[in-house]
């Protein structure tokens, strides 16, 4: 379980610091999936980077199974995986070598690696390209390889930033089913995506970020109960428009005063 308590993150830009995230708290359970939604610049990537330990919080703390990130990583090495939104793979390795690199870092036995490689490459339909250099493959294949590099060794916590970009619908379905499988094995997953359809079909929890603050944090079921018969896209649009209207009201109020 990841417990996020009152975290903030500031960046400096032209000598002025601004909040990328401001006092955010939420809980992510093992075996559940959280969909991270927000406009561009809402702080999604920053949040994922904080969770995966690449960035450090300016304020607040994140605990992983009630441990700090350093302790957690020491006790459970290689259990946190992060896929950044525009990961370009190592161009001069073949897909097999690329995946092997990450498996070797994690010290996965060789035959286990081969089994998994065969299994997952067949599912994502890249079994024929395993020995092609990545620089000679299509963008979609590279995205698949990057995806495989993080999920193949079943991490405990998985953070995916736009994993479905450049992916066709069939493979996206396959990826979703792989993620569901991981979820069933107890992996906690957080996905940021602009593809609300994918988010909707996998998430148990929705986190809507707006300018570094949490706009909405609720279970998928609750949301569907509140807005029956509506897709996630419609719900989100509805919420956004509501916000706009509120802003407009405030604006009008200010003008009248």
């Amino acid at each position: 379980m990841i417990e996020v308590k009152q975290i903030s993150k500031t960046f400096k830009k032209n000598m002025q610091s601004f909040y990328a995230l401001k006092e955010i708290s939420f809980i992510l359970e093992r075996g559940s999936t959280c969909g991270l939604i927000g406009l561009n610049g809402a702080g999604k990537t920053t949040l994922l980077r904080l969770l995966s330990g690449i960035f450090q919080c300016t304020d607040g703390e994140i605990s992983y199974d009630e441990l700090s990130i350093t302790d957690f990583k020491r006790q459970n090495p290689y259990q946190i995986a992060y896929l950044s939104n525009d990961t370009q793979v190592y161009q001069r390795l073949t897909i097999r070598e690329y995946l092997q690199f990450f498996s070797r870092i994690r010290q996965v036995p060789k035959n286990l690696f081969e089994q998994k490689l065969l299994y997952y490459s067949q599912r994502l339909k890249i079994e024929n390209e395993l020995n092609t250099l990545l620089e000679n493959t299509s963008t979609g294949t590279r995205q698949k390889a990057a995806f495989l590099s993080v999920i193949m060794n079943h991490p405990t916590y998985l953070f995916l930033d736009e994993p479905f970009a450049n992916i066709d619908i069939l493979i996206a379905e396959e990826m979703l089913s792989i993620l569901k499988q991981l979820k069933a094995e107890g992996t906690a997953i957080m996905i940021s995506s602009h593809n609300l359809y994918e988010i909707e079909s996998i998430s148990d929890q929705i986190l809507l970020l707006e300018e570094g603050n949490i706009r909405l944090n609720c279970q998928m079921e609750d949301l569907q109960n509140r807005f029956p018969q509506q897709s996630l896209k419609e719900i989100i649009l509805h919420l956004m428009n509501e916000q706009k209207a509120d802003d407009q009201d405030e604006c009008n109020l200010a003008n009248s005063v």
Partner: protein
Amino acid sequence: MNVIWQILFKDIKEIFRNKRALISGLLLPALFIPLLVYFQPYLNSAPESPDIHIALYDYRINQDSLAFVKALKSNDHLTVHRYHQNYKEANDKKNDLNIIIHQDSLRQNYLKVFYNSASSKSLKAFEYVSQIIFNNEINHIRANISDLNETESETTLPHDKKSPFSMYPWIFLMFGFSGAAFVASEIITGEKERHTLETLLSLLNDSQRILKAKYAGVLVFSLTNFLLNLLIMLISIFYFQGDISIHLFKESLLLFVAITPALFLLSAILLHIALNARTIHEARSIESVFFLIFSALIVSVSFVDINHSIIFQMLPFINTVLIIQTMSVSILSVLLLILSCFVPVFFIIKYNLQFIRQEKVLNTVASPTSSNHLTLPLLITAAIFLMLSRFSPLLIQVNYGNGILLSQLIFFFIPSLILIAFQRNKTKWMLFKKVPDIKTIISSIVITVLLFIVVNYYQQFVNSLFSRSVGTDQVKTPEYGIGYSLFLLCLIPAIAEEFFFRGWLFSKWFQKNDKAGIIASALIFAMFHQNYPEFLGLFILGIWFAYQVYLYHSIWPAVISHFVNNALVIWISRTHLNYHTHHSVGFTAFIVLIMLFKMIKPKTQPF
């Protein structure tokens, strides 16, 4: 350890599939070194010809000895110096003398010959002298020969023992660098640019291992490159010069000892450059600038006869060059070599560890908006400073007026326009486009006048320390007409210097940090005038000019202020006013100035 190995192994695999890395690392030395070895005999022959100096001490002439001296003098290569009980003079010239001949005071036909077998010139001199001695015509002369190399340390006579490597201490360093430079930008900056570094950072517990692996990668390639160069050189020496002896292998070993620590340092520098650069492109351009400066330094150090002072040897790379040049090591020089190389390595690694831990390494990728780097402006400024201090006096000597005009144009005006034009920033001409209003101009002029009084009041005190007179010697001008003086000494410098220091340099710096930008540009501005007694005054002026640019978002108030300031200097120097001596004037100006500064507030948001 496993992680370091895996990353290293992966990097090596990637690089070996990269044609360009292989070409820059392998093909270039393979082409260049054989050529160098082939032409070495021709290069070597040049310093062979100069004459050899022979010292004759207390030499008395009899029939036999006169014949000997004549024989010495008849040889074109030899220059004979005679010293009669004037050891001091001889001692002064000790390093120029290649062979010393001392006559026995009792038996005049007995000579003591001192030479140094470690010096090729001395050896040559000994060959000539012994030829003459053993010549039949002078058969009464007997010689007692001693080799100084066995008794004295090698510092008494310059070393120029022929080793095929001693010619090129620089080449191994340079190729060691160039072979690894491409690799560094590829495996370090490349990893940043492709965002794979983030995957690794999230996966691993500590970033230290990533840094170690990357450092090892650069080091492996730089060492491999060096060893390969050495191999190519040995092969080409064998092929072109035919002699490959056990001696050569000993020297190769020495070369290895001398070069390896230097390569550790070079790899660390490369690691630093590559890790701090945002893109591969940026890393390569900084690397190539560094490479040019580094090779210029190393080549020049290799050709200059370096003295062996400890302080000099504390500098990195110097010991490497010294050891290769002399082909000899002492415990001290090895110790200094290791210290001078590994201490900087330690600090560079420590700094970068901090850098990678403090997530700055990703911040640079995350926020590409502030894409300005300070190293390049600093290097360009340093280069212009060097050129200015070298050539400007020459220009001014020839013709004062044209000299000033030319140096202002060449060193400030034209470079500033070119440098600004090459910026990718869309708002690069913003400072020039904005015209200040009349109020701004008036306040600028008033403050400049007050500042001028205050600075001169202070300057008078400093000048009393340097026993200089005030004002009159600030500008030693030929008496031009007032119009031409204003044009030449006020308008041109005001425009050219403001364009350079404020329009380009300051605007480049403040994007990073405005306060530091103002201070740094003012410091450089003061330094450029090379007038050290007036340094502080110039520095304050520089701050004022830069502050105006910062305040008004326009270069023109600064240009006007600069013009006013220069005009005041000329006016004072012509009229010989000495108001500065009055404390009341200085103090009043100071107080009014402070009040005015409190009053002006930026109307718009400063940058």
